[in-house]
């Protein structure tokens, strides 16, 4: 799952306070579903949340 914008970008080390941006919560919730969060700035920001989908859920999707 990808969330992207064409804003100013997001630098975690430079004013990108994790608590302020709720990133701690985001990372914990992603881990809760067995996933992880990645981001890159170019110069907008793109967040990618990778999480596993069970096979039966994929089957339901195909139906």
């Amino acid at each position, binding site marked *: *799952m*990808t*969330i*992207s*914008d*064409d*804003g*100013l*970008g*997001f630098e975690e080390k430079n004013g990108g306070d994790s608590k302020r*941006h*709720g*990133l701690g*919560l*985001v990372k914990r*919730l*992603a881990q*809760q*579903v067995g996933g992880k*969060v990645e981001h890159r700035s170019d110069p*907008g*920001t793109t*967040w*990618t*949340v*990778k*999480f*596993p*989908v*069970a*096979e039966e*859920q*994929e089957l*339901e*999707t195909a139906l």
Partner: protein
Amino acid sequence: MSFPAPDATSPQGRAFVTGQPVISELVHEANFALPPFYGEHGVVSTIDVVIKGGEKPFGILEIDSQTQQGYDQRDVDFLTGFANIIAEAVGTSKRTDVLRATIERMKGLVGEKDDLLKEKTRLIEEKNILAVEVQHRVRNNLQLVYGMLTKQLEHFDASDAKEGIRGIARRVMTLAQVYDHLLGTGMSRTIHFGEYLTALCSGLAALQGEEKANIKLTCHAEAVVLDLDAVTALGIVVAELVSKRLRPCFSRGPREPSRPICARPTRPARRR
């Protein structure tokens, strides 16, 4: 009515005990203890054959005569034929009784099964109604809280406090929308994640209000069904990331969007 135990002291008893036909010329049989009616009716000649039953004989078929007959094997065969017809009729009657009893028992079982099926259907319907009722109440309560929080926003001037309340309202709205997308009836735990995501992004755009109306939020979602817990967690992840992405866009003032903020599902990873 009870009968004495059969023994071989009478023509009938002997036939019953031995299972063999008995021809008797009573005037020559000194060993038999004859029943009184023989003398009363002047019976002097008899022939007895067995009416066969299941495990033991059903009874004896006897011909009595007041004159000497000189019964022989042909008479035995003739009488045995009648005895066999009676035995078959008795057997058929017993089998019919068993069949009738079995049919009655089966009717009872079928009726019981129908009653159980009706009860099962009633319980399922009741469970579905209760489940829907619970879902509606949870959603309505969350929407009530969401309404109170957004109303409260009007009373805050400080942007930090306003943002804090807005963040809580956003999470409440995210949870409330989960209950709008539960699939099927009853206590379903699966959700069409794509449809939920689309509705969530629409709600998030509305929540931002007019002050950020020139930011375009688009959502491209594939059809995938996920578990309730996963959707709840991922919904808040999306809400947090989308809403927080709005802030940097405005740190240098409003502008026309060149590329939309979007929540786009990538190819889901397979669970190994």
